[in-house]
């Protein structure tokens, strides 16, 4: 008797899903595309109401336990009517609001989307805000709705520009192009000025940039000249140009500048980084030291290479005597577990490069 009772208890606990009754969440249009957010900004209507109709197509109550929003630019309201205008965003809910939708019924979930103030695009200028609905639907415990848009940029420029190798004291000039992109049409017609670049700043005093050709008539291409000045110091170029514009939707954009100013010696790396490495293995890294300008007329010689750690060894080898050397930095098997920080000092015969210091880092693991 007691066993039968136990079984009955079990049946009660597992109902209704086990007996065939289960909720089923459904939304006919789970993706809403709002286009270019710029069109709302110019029309002064930063908030859009997006209604999603959530349906329970199953035969048990659909219990929505949480509605999670992926960004601060959206908020949700149950049952609000579509087309409601909000002067301000509705307040955020402190606790997740539960909602039960009986079988065969529908509920309106309104997402209020702030397309201007809070939205920031991802790297590709995509706006993709997700609404994740957690429910007791056994097949789809997580149901995802999307709000998508894409910003039409005002200008198109290369993200980075390689200046290549620049010889010390000689400088270099090169040009590249920036294009003006036709703007998205606003919801309401408004008068506005043509997008234009109003200034360029450089993060390096030894790099200058200017517009050599502005677009005229129907043209949309700017020619920009970048000059590495003669007084540029030797070393890696890690700088950027920032363009300011008169376009509210892209007030500025940047072009990263890379390259190297080569003096009498070119060192292939700025640091040696081992990590993470297993103990008792012998990982190695290479450094190439190459003759650069040869301004003193002398062939390059590596006089010495020392490191202030007994757990790291150095081997120097001439790839081309007097011109190119390879230093192999090896972590010894006795290197203890933990972080190792050392300094490699290379002595050469070149004026201004009598000593070259390269930091060495390693994370040794068991």
């Amino acid at each position, binding site marked *: 008797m007691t066993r039968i009772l136990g079984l009955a208890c079990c049946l009660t606990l597992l109902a209704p899903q086990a007996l065939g009754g289960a909720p089923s969440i459904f939304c006919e249009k789970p993706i809403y595309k709002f286009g270019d957010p710029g069109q709302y900004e110019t029309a002064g209507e930063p908030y859009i109401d997006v209604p999603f109709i959530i349906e329970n197509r199953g035969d048990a109550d659909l219990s929505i336990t949480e509605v999670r929003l992926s960004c601060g630019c959206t908020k949700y309201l149950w049952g609000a009517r579509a087309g409601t205008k909000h002067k301000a965003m509705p307040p955020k809910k402190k606790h997740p609001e539960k909602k039960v939708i009986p079988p065969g019924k529908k509920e309106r979930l309104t997402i209020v989307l702030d397309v201007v*103030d809070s939205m920031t695009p991802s790297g590709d200028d995509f706006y993709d805000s997700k609404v994740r609905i957690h429910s007791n639907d056994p097949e789809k415990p997580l149901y995802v709705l999307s709000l998508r848009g894409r910003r039409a940029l005002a200008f198109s420029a290369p993200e*980075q520009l390689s200046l290549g190798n620049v010889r010390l004291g000689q400088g270099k000039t090169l040009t590249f192009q920036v294009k003006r992109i036709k703007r998205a049409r606003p919801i309401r017609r408004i008068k506005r000025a043509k997008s234009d670049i109003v200034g360029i700043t450089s993060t390096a005093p030894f790099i200058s940039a200017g517009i050599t050709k502005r677009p005229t008539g129907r043209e949309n291409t700017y020619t920009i000249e970048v000059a590495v000045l003669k007084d540029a110091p030797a070393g890696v170029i890690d700088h950027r140009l920032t363009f300011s514009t008169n376009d509210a939707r892209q007030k500025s954009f940047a072009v990263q500048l890379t390259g190297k100013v080569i003096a009498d010696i070119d060192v292939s790396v700025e640091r040696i980084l081992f990590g*993470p490495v297993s103990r008792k293995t012998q990982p190695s890294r290479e450094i190439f030291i190459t003759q650069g300008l040869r301004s003193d007329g002398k062939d390059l010689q590596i006089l010495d290479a020392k490191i202030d750690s007994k757990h790291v060894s150095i081997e120097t080898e001439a790839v081309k005597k007097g011109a190119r050397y390879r230093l192999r930095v090896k972590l010894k098997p006795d290197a203890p577990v933990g972080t190792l920080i050392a300094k490699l000092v290379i002595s050469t015969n070149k004026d201004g490069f009598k000593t070259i210091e390269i*930091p060495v880092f390693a994370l040794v693991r068991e």
Partner: protein
Amino acid sequence: MRIPYPALLLVSAVCLTGCRPAEQPSIICTGQRKGYLEPCGFSRPQLGGLARLDRLISSIEPAPVLLDNGDLTMRVGRQAHIKWQTTIGALGMMGYSAVNVGEKDLALGADFIKAEAAAANVPLISANIAGPNGNLLFKPFVMLKINGLRVAVIGLLGVDFAKNLPVKLIDPAEAIERVIGQLKGKCDRTILLAHMPYEQAQPLAKKLPECLFALCAHQGDEPDIKQTTDGLLLFAGSKSKYVISIKTKPADGGNAATVKAEEVELGPKLKDTRRITELLTFYQQVVRMEDLLGKVPRAPHPKGLYGGTQACAKCHPAAMKVWSNSKHAHAYETLVKQNRQYDPECVVCHVIGLKNVGGYRSIEATPQLANVGCEACHVPGKAHCDAPERYKTLEASRKWCVNCHGPDHDPRFDLEKSWPKIEHKKK
């Protein structure tokens, strides 16, 4: 024999529902990490981070196949190089089987990423990135065993994404034909790691024989799973807040494989693993030793130089009082508590003018510019301090808040709620 009731209950439940132990994913897909090594910690809960990914992976038995779709970092420059090295090291520890090369990876230099990936024992793949001589720079595919099947994982980069890079990009359609020729009779299934959006990847995946799925890129910010008539298209989202977990099961007879994909969030329930935490501490040490804070490229601000927060206090005591009671006044302190005060990518949102000439340099050199002081919102005010009648300060715009309180750093940010906390009168 007496059967205990709890056991009876359990057996009955299993019989009635047909419950089995949860099926484990056999493939985990990630991509477009874009330099996000860990959640920034600005507000909680935040998603993502290498340490949580490691926890998720190590909780799956047997170990799943791990695939990444590239763009480990976002930018170029010193910090990006160190980040790339750190990330590939972490992926090596986790045992990644393939990383498809993205344009952001290539921007750091093909030689650099090849050497670092080899050191970390992570295969980099791409079937269409060639050097100036036309030879492929990476392996076009890797062969893996998944559920007893021979699976070829092929990497491709979209042509739109490598316009300014010193490499030759072979047309992906041509590259895929070459790969199909090489794979004839050698594999049972294929997987396409396509560093391109859905619309470009879909026709390529269609060409591949027995393609389980195509993992795509540049498809926005949030993860996505799309079943089309041509196959399954996946996007793991941007900044590695989610992974796509895939369960594969060969059907009877092994002729067709069923694939079930779902997004899994890397949330705070996944505790950070020790080995990745150690690696990130090491990363911070390198950032500090390299003095990246001192090497931040600085552009002159069009409004001139900074005067420091205390300089404003003399004439604006009421505003100062509001500010002093706000979290902005302790922004640097919170950074120190997290030991991130040497990382320029963190410091930029906790001080004044890090990227500008005359802005914050270090706590020793420019203590007056630590914390999110007046000039962080009202632009540089030295000229205004020197001649207040001649130079006016600028009204702070509410739009600027999201520069730091954006969805990646402060997902629960509510402008309407937060604004009154810092709002103040002029005097």
